[in-house]
């Protein structure tokens, strides 16, 4: 499959990674039940069809994968009996906000002081004040507002990963202690 993406292995691996990352966003945005599983299923279906299409298909491999993904989205909706365009109610209280808060405090410790300051300052204001404040922060850091947004995003992504890990540890510990968790 990688060879079909690109003869250069490194480029092919990068293409695979790009497609998979994009597929996850698409499945999440279409409210699919298990985005990771569906991304795997996309590549499995591609692998099965590859023999038949590799010599004839001339387009972008990403486009072909996307076609498979669209089919999977329709199948997923049918399976869950959710018609296109009709939305279900959001899940409520799946996550304990207190646990997230405690984990946030722990995860902030892993950040450098500058990153702690940036992420907390970034979320200081709202509305017009937020726009002005971000502009001022960008000026003080001598970077563009786009770069500031990207920096804040990277810190937030790392915090999210750390918090999820922390939450799963908390859940395991709580289960060991025999207490009820929200997970």
């Amino acid at each position, binding site marked *: 499959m990688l060879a079909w993406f690109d003869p250069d292995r490194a480029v092919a691996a990068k293409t695979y990674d790009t497609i998979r990352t994009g597929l996850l*966003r698409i499945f999440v945005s279409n409210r699919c039940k298990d985005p990771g599983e569906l991304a795997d299923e996309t590549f499995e279906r591609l692998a099965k069809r590859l023999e038949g299409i590799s010599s004839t298909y001339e387009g972008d491999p990403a486009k072909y994968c996307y076609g498979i993904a669209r089919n999977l989205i329709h199948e997923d909706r049918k399976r869950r009996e959710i018609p296109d365009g009709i939305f279900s109610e959001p*899940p409520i209280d799946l996550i304990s906000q207190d646990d997230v808060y405690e984990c946030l*405090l722990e995860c902030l410790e892993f950040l450098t002081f500058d990153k702690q300051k940036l992420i907390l300052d970034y979320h200081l204001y*709202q509305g017009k004040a937020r726009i002005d404040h971000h502009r001022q922060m960008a000026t003080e850091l001598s970077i563009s507002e*786009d*770069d500031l947004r990207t*920096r804040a995003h990277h810190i937030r992504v790392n915090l999210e990963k750390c918090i999820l890990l922390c939450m799963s540890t908390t859940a395991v510990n709580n289960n060991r202690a025999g207490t009820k968790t929200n997970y």
Partner: protein
Amino acid sequence: MRGPKPITNEERNKVRSYLLAQLAEVESEQLELRLVSDSAFVEEFDTVVDELIDDYLTGELSEAERQSAESHFLVAEERQEKLAVARAIRSLVQKNRKDRSQGVTTNSLKRIPVYMWVTAVVLFAVLGVAAIWMITRPRATQTVALNLNITASDRGTATKPERITIDSNVGELRLSLRLPENEVKSSSYRVVLVNTDGTTRNIPVERVNNQFVVVNVETSTLTSGTYALQVSAIDENMHERRLNGSYLFELVKS
């Protein structure tokens, strides 16, 4: 390190519409196709997700957008997790702000690792030496204190601003901004200094009481001219409300 190539505002708006299920099918498919073929676009896409979550939390979405967010955008477990993290960050920021205004050490500061405290102690020692040098060196740094009242007009209009004449010995202005009597008091305020050239910057609030918001401004950052200070009250939900009018002063450096 440079970030990815930013997308245009129009593209950001399209991503936003897509996330809220408000983008036409053809455009949605174009956008999804780009997601599987452009890794830089994925990163920009993710920043729009963050922004939309923030806007949802701070109540900045229209009613229709809020409904779409709840019935579509926030349904996936991944987004619920992101929402919970964003909510926790906001809570912490709000708590820090409240604590700071009450002079309480924040929880996050208590949790700063030991090596950072060691660094801080060393830094304080260095700063201490520097401070002694600053105090003992032959240079006068006086502070001029002044009470200012709010005026209905902004800088440059008919109201005569308070004149402050200072010489080179004055290093700092301590400005006590008297709050209007009929103003509903808040525990937190934001002060913006409008410079002579019309540019603005935030000035840290030193102290707040029932009557005044006190700020210090270094005179080295000011030139002779007329300045305006704009004050906004911030309530416990972090909503900002600008006080009508400005605090004007004219600085004369002799």
